[in-house]
C-alpha cells in the first residue's frame, strides 16, 4: 500500500515544560512494493515515525495519506480500523501479553475482526508452523526465549494478512543467526508484495539486499538517503 507523509510534525506534551519536538517536517513517499529501512541514533524519532505510519498515533500537524486515504484529522476510530485491517506492527519490545499462550497472543488481532475460534486457531497454527515455533504454541509468552518471542511477534503481525508490515528495531535483541532468520522471513514477505518498513540501526539490516532504500533520521529530521 502506498504511503505518503507531507510535512509531518510531531510534538509530545506540546506546550508543557517537557515538550519534545520528535518529528520536524517529514516528507516521505513509500511505494506499495517497497522495503524501506529507517536508521538513525536512539531518540531520533524512528519509533514515532513508525507509529504514525502504523496509525497508532496521529501527527500533530501535516498529513499522512495511506492507500489514497488521508489519515490526519481522522478520529481514533478510523485509525483503529486501519490498524486492524492493514497493519502488521512488530513492536520494539515485542509486547506480547505474558500470561497468554503463544497461540492466544498470535491470534489476538483476529478477535475484533470477528473471526471464529476454530478459524483463529487454524490460522494461528499455520503461521506458527511457517515460522517454526509451532512447538511453543501452548507456552505462556513469559516462558519462551528471545528468538521465539520475536517469531511470535512476527506471527502476530502477520495474522491479519496486512498489506503493510512495520518492524521497530526487530534485531536489537537477537544474535546474528536469528537476525538473518528474520531477514529471510522479510524476504519471503517482500516476495508476496508487502510494503515493509523497518527501523533499525543494525548494519546487518540496512545492508541487507531485502532493503530497497535507507532513510536516515536525526533529531526528527529526515536526511538524504545514504
Amino acid at each position, binding site marked *: 500500500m502506498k504511503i505518503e507523509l507531507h510535512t509531518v510534525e510531531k510534538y509530545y506534551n506540546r506546550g508543557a515544560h517537557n515538550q519534545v519536538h520528535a518529528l520536524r517536517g517529514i516528507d516521505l513517499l513509500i511505494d506499495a512494493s517497497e522495503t524501506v529501512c529507517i536508521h538513525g541514533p536512539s531518540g531520533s524519532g524512528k519509533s514515532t515515525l513508525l*507509529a504514525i505510519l502504523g496509525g497508532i*498515533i496521529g501527527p500533530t500537524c501535516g498529513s499522512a495519506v495511506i492507500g489514497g486515504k488521508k489519515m490526519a484529522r481522522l478520529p481514533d476510530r478510523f485509525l483503529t480500523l486501519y490498524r486492524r*485491517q492493514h497493519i502488521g506492527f512488530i513492536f520494539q519490545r515485542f509486547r506480547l501479553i505474558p*500470561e497468554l499462550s503463544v497461540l492466544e497472543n498470535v491470534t*489476538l*488481532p483476529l478477535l*475484533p*475482526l470477528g473471526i471464529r*475460534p476454530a478459524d483463529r486457531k487454524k490460522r494461528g497454527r499455520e503461521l506458527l508452523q511457517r515460522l517454526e515455533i509451532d512447538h511453543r504454541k501452548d507456552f505462556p509468552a513469559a516462558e519462551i526465549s528471545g528468538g521465539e518471542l520475536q517469531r511470535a511477534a512476527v506471527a502476530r503481525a502477520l495474522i491479519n494478512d496486512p498489506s503493510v508490515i512495520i518492524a521497530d528495531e526487530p534485531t536489537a535483541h537477537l544474535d546474528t543467526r536469528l537476525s538473518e532468520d528474520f531477514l529471510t522471513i522479510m524476504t519471503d514477505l517482500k516476495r508476496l508484495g508487502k510494503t515493509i518498513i523497518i527501523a533499525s540501526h543494525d548494519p546487518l539490516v540496512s545492508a541487507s539486499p531485502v532493503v530497497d532504500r535507507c532513510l536516515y533520521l536525526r533529531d526528527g529530521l529526515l536526511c538524504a538517503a545514504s
Partner: protein
Amino acid sequence: MAGSYLDRQLNIADYALSGFIRRLGRNSVVVFIFALVIFMVASFSLTTTSLKHSASRLLTTVPDITVQQMSAGRQAALSVTVIEKLDGIFGIRSMEPRVWGYYFDENNGANYTVIGHANFSDKARIAGLGIDFLPALKLDADADPAVLGRGVRENLELGERRTFSLFRPDLSVQSFITVGTFSAETSMVTDDLIIMDLDSARELFGLGPDDITDLLVDVANPLEIDTIADKIGERLAGVRVVTSERIKKTYRVAFGWRSGFGLACLFGAVAAFFIFAWDKASGLTPAQQQEVAILKALGWHTEDVITLRFWESLIISALAFCLGYLGAWMHLLFFDGILFRPLLLGWSVLKPPLSLVPVFSFADLLLIFSLSVLPYLAATVIPAWQSATIRPDSVI
C-alpha cells in the same frame, strides 16, 4: 473478511472468560466476597419472605374479635353463659368458646401452648393452620384426641407412637391420642401447640364445666368489627375485647421494625463492597494498563475494551450471584435461616425450633439481582471507561 457484530462480541466474551480462568486465584477471592454479600442479602430476604408467608397464613386464622374476662388486671375464667348475653347483637355470625393455657412439661422443662376448641372434631374449622391428619385409629375410650405441633412431638419423644399422657393440676394422669400434626409451614406458632377438644382442655387445666378462657367472635361484615367490639364491651362487665386488626398491627410493627433494621445493616455491607469494587476497577495495575495498550494497538476499539470489562464483571457477578443465592436457599432449607432468625424473631422465640420453608418469590430474586449484579457492573464498567481510553502509544 470482517465477521459479524455477533462474532466480534462472542470473541470478546470468549477472551473475557479465558482471562477469568487465567486469573482464577485472584478472581475467586472477589467472587467469594461478593457471593458472601449476596448470600447475606438473599438469606435475609428469603427468611423474611418465608416468615411473612408463614405469618400471613396464621393471621388469616385469627378470629375477628376475642373476648376475655379480666379480674383485678389478670385474665380470669369466663363463663360460657356469655354467649347467650351476646346472642342479640346483630352482625355476629358465630361465637366459639375456647380454653387455652400453658402446660409446663416437667420432664424436659418445656412449655406447651394448649388450646381447647369446641369444634375440635370439625376438621374444616382448624384446617387453616395446615394439619397433616394421621389415619384414623380405633379410639381408645379413655384417650382424648389431640393435634400436636412438631416441637411437642419431638419433646415428648413420641416417635411412631400415637398415645401420650399429661398431668392434671391434681397430678392425676390424662391420656391423649395424636390424630394429626401441624405442617412445618406454620411451625412459627404451631411448634409448641397442642389442640384438643374443649372438654379435654377444661379437664387438663382443672376448669369448671362452664368455664372458658376466651370467646372467639366471628363477624359477618369486616367493616363492623369495631362497632361490634364496642357493643360487646358495653354488654359485659370487666371484659377485654381484642380485635384481629390490633393483633395484626402489633405483629406487623414488631416484624417491620426488625426487618427494616436488618436491611439497613445489610445495606452497609453491600455499599462497602461496591466501594471496594469501584476502587479495584479504577486503579489498574501497570500490567493491566499494558494489556489494554497492546489490545488497542492491535486494533481493539475503546468500546471493545469496555465490552471486555463488561463481560469480565458479568462473569464474576453472575457467578457470585448464583453461588450466593444457592447458598441462601440451602441456608433456609437445611439450616432454617439460623443466621437471621434471631434478628427477625427476637431471641426469645428461638426456643421452640421452627422450620422455615423457602418461598420462591420472583420479585425478590429480581430485586436482589438488580441490587447486586447491576451495581457491580456499574461499579466496575464505569471506571473501566477511563482505563479503556488509554492511548496505545505506550507500546511503541
